[in-house]
Structures are given as structure tokens and as C-alpha cells.
């Protein structure tokens, strides 16, 4: 085996490394999509399941079938040249294996679960497993970037690159939208959508929304009062500190008393005003459908005559 090292990145090596990095583009995009769908799995089991199963199949058929074997070939050659990385590269190769097994398990578990299961505790446990999977995969990619991507082009020879790049597989299908639509239709549709919603997917009921707004208004109200109380306390201290002699102290105490009294009044009137307004608003909101219903019936009666 030749030990001549390339003085600069050889062309096959450079192209190979570029292709590996390019694979991480597709992988990162799909990680993001898996994250989106995992968080809506329990709320929309059928919609999320279709996309997740497509995503895991895509990972199995491309990344685990071609991308990781390419990296493993690269690891083997780096290990032969640079024993300093032996342990790290072994760990990374092991993560490829365990990652593939977990991808298969997740795809199977998603496929075979009923909608009710996915919407319940089983689904919640599955979401946790998917989150772990995402965390591991992202950390794995980060390690690959720092540990061996930069090292590979430095330590490998032209001979190594020829051996590594021989028998290479297809390109990442994510770069071809037609292939994606044909093979992974649900995933392709989702990747095409330029807007993602993260969090609640069910629209809120208008009554609970109204109530929430009122509670927020109350929080604002008390926040405001608290803020004013802090400001008032600061001002009062300043007034007391600046008092020189008994006369100015009495005058300061008088001003403090008047301001505190005014503030106490605000503490009573503002929440009461809020309660009256909110109560009236909620009653009107509650009566509105009945009143509209009544109006419609009256309209129909007159229309009928």
C-alpha cells in the first residue's frame, strides 16, 4: 500500500467529500420535517403518520443504504492512516448501525399502530423516542463534521480515494422532486409547503379564546398596578430621603399619603371596571347565538308570509 499523501485535496476525494456534505443537506431538511410531524402526531395521527413513515423510509432507502456505507468506507481508510481517531470512528460507525435499527423500529411501530394508539399514551411515548432519535442524529452529524470531515482530505491518499469512491451508489433522491413525489408523496407534499405550524393544530373555540383574552387583560391590569406600585414606592423613598427638617418631612408625608390614597383608589376601581366590562362582554357573547337564532326565525316567518 502506498503511503504517499496527497499534498492537496485530490479531485475524487474533494468531490466525494462534497457529496457527503450534500447528503447532510437532505438529512437536515428531513430532520426538521420529522420534528414538525412528531409534535403533531398525537393530535393528527393519520396526517402525521403518513409523512413520518415516508420520512423514515427515505432515510432507510437512501441514507442508511448508501450514505452511511460511504462514510463507513471512509472511516475504515482514515483509521488505517490515523489511529488517533480509532475510538471516535468506531463509535460513529456503531451509531450508524444503531441508528438504522431505530429507524426501522420507528417506521414499523408507526405503521402498525392504530390511530387511537397514536393519539394516546403509546403515541406520546413514540414522540419521545422520535425526539431522542432526532437529538442523536443531529449530534452525530455535528461530530462527523468536526471530527473527520476536515481530517479526511488531509490524511487520505489518492489510492485511498480510488478505493472509497469505487462502487458508489445513487445520488440523494431529495434533490429530484419528481422522484420524491413518486416514492414519498406525503413527505414531498409537506416539504413543498413553505409554511409550517408548530404547536397547537386544533383551532381554539371562540368562547375559550375570549376568556383567555380577558384573563390576559387582567394580567396586564395587575402587571400595570404592580409596576405603578414599585414606581410609587421608589418615589416615596426619594421624597422621604430628600426631606430636610420637620416641616419638609411633614409636607413629604402629606404628599405620600395623598398619592398612596389615589393609588389605592385605582387598585379598587380598575379591577372592578374590568369585572363589569368582562362580565357584560361574556354575557353578550353567550346570548349572541340565541339572539341571532331568534332574528333568523323572525326573518323566516316574515319571509314566509
Amino acid at each position, binding site marked *: 500500500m502506498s503511503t504517499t499523501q496527497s499534498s492537496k485535496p485530490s479531485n475524487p476525494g474533494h468531490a466525494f467529500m462534497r457529496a457527503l456534505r450534500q447528503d447532510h443537506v437532505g438529512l437536515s431538511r428531513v430532520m426538521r420535517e420529522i420534528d414538525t410531524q412528531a409534535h403533531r402526531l398525537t393530535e393528527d395521527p393519520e396526517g402525521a403518520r403518513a409523512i413520518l413513515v415516508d420520512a423514515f423510509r427515505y432515510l432507510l432507502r437512501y441514507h442508511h443504504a448508501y450514505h452511511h456505507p460511504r462514510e463507513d468506507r471512509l472511516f475504515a481508510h482514515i483509521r488505517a492512516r490515523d489511529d488517533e481517531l480509532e475510538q471516535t470512528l468506531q463509535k460513529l460507525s456503531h451509531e450508524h448501525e444503531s441508528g438504522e435499527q431505530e429507524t426501522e423500529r420507528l417506521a414499523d411501530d408507526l405503521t402498525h399502530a392504530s390511530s387511537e394508539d397514536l393519539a394516546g399514551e403509546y403515541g406520546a411515548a413514540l414522540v419521545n423516542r422520535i425526539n431522542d432519535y432526532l437529538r442523536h442524529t443531529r449530534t452525530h452529524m455535528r461530530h462527523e463534521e468536526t471530527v473527520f470531515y476536515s481530517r479526511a482530505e488531509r490524511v487520505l491518499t489518492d489510492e485511498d480515494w480510488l478505493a472509497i469512491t469505487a462502487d458508489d451508489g445513487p445520488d440523494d433522491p431529495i434533490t429530484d422532486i419528481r422522484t420524491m413525489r413518486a416514492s414519498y408523496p406525503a413527505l414531498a407534499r409537506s416539504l413543498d409547503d413553505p*409554511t409550517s405550524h*408548530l404547536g397547537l393544530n386544533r383551532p381554539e373555540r371562540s368562547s375559550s379564546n375570549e376568556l383567555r383574552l380577558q384573563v390576559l387583560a387582567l394580567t396586564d391590569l395587575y402587571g400595570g398596578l*404592580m409596576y405603578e406600585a414599585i414606581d410609587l414606592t421608589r418615589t416615596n423613598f426619594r421624597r422621604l430621603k430628600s426631606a430636610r427638617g420637620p416641616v419638609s418631612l411633614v409636607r413629604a408625608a402629606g404628599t405620600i399619603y395623598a398619592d398612596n390614597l389615589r393609588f389605592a383608589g385605582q387598585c379598587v376601581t380598575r379591577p372592578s371596571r374590568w369585572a363589569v366590562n368582562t362580565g357584560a362582554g361574556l354575557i353578550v357573547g353567550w346570548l349572541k347565538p340565541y339572539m341571532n337564532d331568534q332574528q333568523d326565525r323572525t326573518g323566516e316567518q316574515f319571509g314566509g308570509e
Partner: protein
Amino acid sequence: MVSWQTRTAKLLSRLTIRQSLKRELSIADMRERIRSMERFFPSVPDDIHIENEPGLSHCDAEWLTPSSGPTERVILHLPGGAFMTRFVRAERLLLARMCRATNARGRLVFYRLAPENPYPAGLDDCMEAYQQILDLGIPPEHLIISGVSAGGCLALSVLLKARDLDLPMPAGAILMSPAADMTDESTDGSRVANAARDAVLSLERGDEIRRLYLGEHVELANHPYISPVLADYTGLPPLFFQVSGSEILLDDSHRCAERARACGVPAEVEVWDRMPHGWQALSFAPESGRAIARLADFIRERCP
């Protein structure tokens, strides 16, 4: 489900930051209060090395380097704060976390603030930082520009101005709830619909913010560098927006993204449910970690 950490942060910001924004506080008072709130943010982790050189002509700036061994990627980050103030520790920590998640070096620019330095001082500083990165020989395809709130607006302005000056474009831009509309036309949309739901921002002093930021140039509010919602996005790199569905700034992201797409620029919008403005910086909240992981995915997609 929103985590209890984020719920607590929302309540606290509603009781503090939002109240400050609703009151007639002086800029000095507001900055002082923000400094006292900042004590609650942890400092940058030990594995991030910070240095100041090379600096910028008119403002402070920092380089953040993760000790794990950075790749060629660089994130140019522009902090938020209504162009008048900023959470220094929170923004530094946010950038440090983004750098760690992507093995990137970070450039944090503390651009000059209004009202002492009204428009275009802040934008000039950001442009200088951008030009400096290019002059250092960092290839633009390894560069991502990011910004939160007012910083998001400046990030878009830098892209627009760089394009107008024929400078090379970065690989992509991350825009966290950009405040991209400084015109006074908020009679409907999220600025009205979310006025009560927004846990952090209040528009009650919107006019004053605009007046202080623009100084003598209030008539420039419609200029695309100040209100990027009105800009032509042709030639810009892919944009990635993260915004909360309950923010008053929600529509700014949607409008920018729509205009970008109309100009053939890929633009994605992530709408997060019930998050407070700038939740990415809440390092103690799980949603912040998730948001940063997704930002890192985007960075890896744009700078492989």
C-alpha cells in the same frame, strides 16, 4: 403544549417588559431596567471562546468560537431591542448556542443605537461588519446572517443593501420575528388582532420608536431598508422566518416571505404556537432548544 418554563417567562415578560413598553419611560430608564433583568440570563458557556478583534469602526462587536473545532461556517448575528436597547447577555448566549449547534463561528454586532445614533448609523455598522467578513476572505457561501426583531429588520436591510451594492450574497438568512414594517398602517392584521395576546411587545409607543429610530428622516419610513415588507427581494438568498402566532409582528414575517416568494426567493415561515417574542433566547425553555435545533438544520441545509 407550551412548557411551564415558557409560560412562566411569558407571565414575567407581561408583568415587566410589556409594562415598560407601555409607559412613558426614558430610554435611559428602559436600558437600566433591561440591564437589571439581564442578570437572570446565564453567561456564555465555557466552551465558547469570545474575542473582539478585528473590531469595527463605530461599535463593539464580538467573535464567538466554539472550542469543539469550528467548520468554515460563520453566523453574522444582529441583536434586537427596538433599535434603542438590547439584551446583551441573552443575545450572546443565543448566538453561542447557534454556533455550538452548527460548529460555526459567530459574529455579534452591537450596532449603534437610536436615539443617540438614528438611522442609518445602525445599518452602516451592520454593513461594515458584513463587508469585513467578506474582506477576511470568508466565502459568502459559508455565511449566514441572522437577526431577532429589530435585528431581523436590519438583517433584511443588510441583504437588500448588499444586493444593491453588488456585494456577494450570503448562503441564507435567519429572521426571528423581524420588525419589518415601520410604516404607520397597522389598522388591521396581527398588530391589532394580537395586541392583547402578545406577552412582550406593545405598540402603544410605536410612533415614538419610529420617530427616535428615524430621527429627522421620518419620511423614510416607507424606504425598503427601513420597512423591508415593501422591498423587492429579487436576488436575495433563501430566507427562514421563525415567528410566534401570538405576536403583533406575525404578519411582518408572512408579508416579507410572500414578497420574497413572488420574486423567486425561497422563503419558509415557521409559525410557533403561543410563544413569546424572542423565545429562542430563553435558554431554560425546551421550545428554545427545539427552535435552535431547527435553525441549525436550516444552516446545515444552506452551508453544507
